[in-house]
Every structure is written in C-alpha cells, then in structure tokens.
C-alpha cells in the first residue's frame, strides 16, 4: 500500500528512509530526539519535499512530482493539533467533509461515534480557541479520523499528556485502525507508547539512517546500537 524510498538533506545530516507498509499495518518509528523521525513523516505527508526517491500510496504517486496536499489521502496529527481557532469544535471536526458528506447518514453516524468515544459532547459547540491542550488533542484526533483516511501519520501526538489520557487515546486508535482498516505510522521517543500503538513492527532511526527494523521483541532482544540499547533499557 505505502511504498516509500527517499532521501532528504537536513542541515546536520541526510535522512534516508525506505519502507513498504501493507494495508491496515502499523509501524512505530523510534529513535532519540532529533534522529529525523518527524522529517520522515513530513515528507510522506507532503509538508516537506524529499530531495530524491519516490513515495507511492496505493495507486497515488505522492512524489515525484509532489502531489498537492489536498489530493493526499493522509491523516496527519502532530504534537500541536493545529485546530482552527475561529471555528467551534464541531466545525473543526467536520471541516474536511463536504456538505453532502455531512448530510449523509453514514458519515453522521461516524461523527457521532467519534464524538461519543472521544468524550467530545460537552465541548461540541465550544470555540476551539477556548479548550485545554488535552481536549485539543482529542479534537485533533477526531478531525483527522472524520475523513477515514487510509493512512494515518502520528508525530508524537501524545507528548505532554497524562498517562491515563494517553492510554485511552491509544486504545481508541488501535480499535479504529482495526475497525476502519487504516495503516498507521507513529513517531515517538518513548518506546512504551509506540509498543502499545504499533505492537508488531518498528524501525529505528539514528542520525537519519535506519539502524534496525523488525519486531519489538527483536529490537529489545538484540539492539543494534549502544544508543538504542540505552533507549530501550527502561523497558
């Protein structure tokens, strides 16, 4: 489904990445802060353009040439959920849906499911500029999932949240990735978060290079570098 092989020059090093990810699969992208993980997601999302290589998602060629952002069937959630402050929570969540889609029963049911599961009912009419950081993450998650994208990219979306909320959000994401069938690539510098979110497969980046890929059991059993060993030590 996702076929990505590309390089991206950064000021300090070059990020080289390659991945083939099947439909409905999830991948944890792990490494220390500044290893190039966010750059990888930004290139796949289209926020940044790779310097070389190719990215295909199902039948769509994302790069090269760069496919315009509005044609990319991708959900992208970052640490800062970037809600539209001039709109209500409801309007943020339905932002990417056309009028016809909003009127459609199936879509309406799906939005109602998101609203209930993410406990958004009390906030529904509130301005997005007036809600707390934790609430904003839930709204951002609902907005991303409202269009049911086939690929979801998560760039440390749980940083700074309390453990209980993180656990709930991870459970929701895992549940929906199975029920909707979207693929998922998640970035985090905390291995325990990634192991819960993407339990099967992980790629480890150091200085922009892939140093190891495999199951979490393989990574924990035989870490390829001293840095990875130290990152996994707390587990």
């Amino acid at each position: 489904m996702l076929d990505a092989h590309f390089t991206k020059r950064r000021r300090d090093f070059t990020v080289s990445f390659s991945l083939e990810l099947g439909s409905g699969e999830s991948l944890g992208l792990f490494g220390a802060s500044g290893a190039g993980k966010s750059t990888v997601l930004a290139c796949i999302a289209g926020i940044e353009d790779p310097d070389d290589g190719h990215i295909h998602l199902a039948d769509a060629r994302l790069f090269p040439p760069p496919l315009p952002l509005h044609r990319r069937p991708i959900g992208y959630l970052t640490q800062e959920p970037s809600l539209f402050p001039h709109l209500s929570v409801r309007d943020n969540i339905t932002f990417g849906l056309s009028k016809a889609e909003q009127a459609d029963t199936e879509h309406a049911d799906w939005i109602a499911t998101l609203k209930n599961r993410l406990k958004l009912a009390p906030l529904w009419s509130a301005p997005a500029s007036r809600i707390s950081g934790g609430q904003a993450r839930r709204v951002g998650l609902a907005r991303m999932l409202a269009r049911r994208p086939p690929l979801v990219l998560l760039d440390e979306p749980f940083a700074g949240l309390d453990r209980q909320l993180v656990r709930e959000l991870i459970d929701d994401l895992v549940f929906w990735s199975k029920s909707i069938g979207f693929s998922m690539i998640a970035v985090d510098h905390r291995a325990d978060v990634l192991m819960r979110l993407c339990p099967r497969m992980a790629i480890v980046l150091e200085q922009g290079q892939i140093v190891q890929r495999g199951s979490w059991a393989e990574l924990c059993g035989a870490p390829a570098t001293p840095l990875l060993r130290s990152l996994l030590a707390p587990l």
Partner: protein
Amino acid sequence: MSEGRSWMARAGAALLALALLYPLSALFARIGAWQWSAQVREPALASVRVSLVLTAIAMVIVVVLGTPMAAYIARCSSKERLVWQAALLVPILLPPLALGILFTLAFGPFGGVGRLLQHYGVAMTNNAPAFVVTQVYVAMGYYVLGAVAALDAVPSMLQKQAALLGLTPARVFFRVTLPLARLGLAVALSIAWVRAVGEFGAVVVTAYYPSGMPVQLWVDLQSYGLPAVMPLLVIFLAVALPLPWLAHVLAQRRSNA
C-alpha cells in the same frame, strides 16, 4: 522598575500623549462664529460626496487588486519578497506633490499610457477617474504591505492542515487564511482609507476637480478664512478617524488577549 520610576515613566508617556492630542483642542478655538452659508455649504457637501464615493471606489480597487498580490507576496521566498516590497515602497515614499506631477505627465499626452488613453478619448486629469486612480496609487502600497503582514501572521501549519483535510488552495484561503487575517486586513484597509481620503498633494495636481474634502478645505481657507473651514473640518475628521481608530484598537485588544 521601582514605583517612583514607574510613576515618572507614566507621567512622561501621558505628557507626550497629551502633546500629540493637543492640536484637536483647536476645534474649540475662539475664532468667531463658524460660517456655514449656502456659498460655503454647497461645495463643502459636494466635496464630502466626492470624497466618500470616489474613495470607496478606490478602496474596492485596492482590495480587489491588492489582496491577491499580498497573498502572492506572503508565499514568496524572502529574496523575491524584497523585490515586491521595494516596488510597493516607491509610491509610499514619493512626496505626494511629486507623485501628482509624475502622474499627470505619465497619464497625460507626454506619457505612453496617456497617449493611448487619449486615443480612446479618455482624459486623466480633473475628472473622477483621475481622482480614483490617484488615490489607488497613493493607498495601494500601504494596503498591500499591511495585508502581507496580516497574512504572514496566520500560522502556515493551519493552512497545511486544512489542505491535508482536502481543501484546495482557494478554499484554504477563504476558510482559514482570510478569517484569521481579517482584523489585520481591516487595519491595512483603514490605513489605506485614511491615506487616500486625506490625500491633498497628489490630488490637487491630478484632480483639482471634482474637489474632494482636502482640496475644498484648502479652497475655503484661501477664499473665506478659518470660520468657513471649521464645519467641513469636523466632517472630515468624523469621516477619516473613527473607522481606522476602531480597527486599530480592536486589533491591539486581540493581540493583547
């Protein structure tokens, strides 16, 4: 800052603010009864109509042409942006009288565009089109540079998120960029409005007729003296000041919120 020094700083700021507001006290100066006879009133009211209608038309042109240019400049590389900003600064920095003379020459029989216009029977002096176009020249730079700053203030990540949610660039502009920049755009427009409606130096050369308020004030001052100027001056201030003042206060309030 200690309490004593803070008090002194506040007193200093208050003195400067008072000094800046002091000229407004002249509205209550004892210069005798204000003159508002038919001889003064009719051209004065005509000048109010001319200023309001023609400046409004000029502002529509400024917004329609200036907003897309500002949107383009806001997306440019910093090098290219410098070129556009340098070009927009020229009409701002030109002394108004010099701009009026250059405008008259360029759009008159000595200029290429002027000859072309004459060929089609369009004169660009002492008429409404000359008035409007002069105001557009005078105000455009102020509006576009202000609009670029307003558009720059919208976080680019919001626009990218909107695009990733399936919105085309045009829809991103109308649903995200414009609503978030609207107060900044209003401030830019209000500055352009004040600059255009108060323009004298350039307009007195290009469009002495139809006379707008600044030209009529000057004519009244020359012909009848201060008492004949005061009523139109009050109208002039009422038209020029409140809108931009309100836009600025609102913008400040929002940025302080």
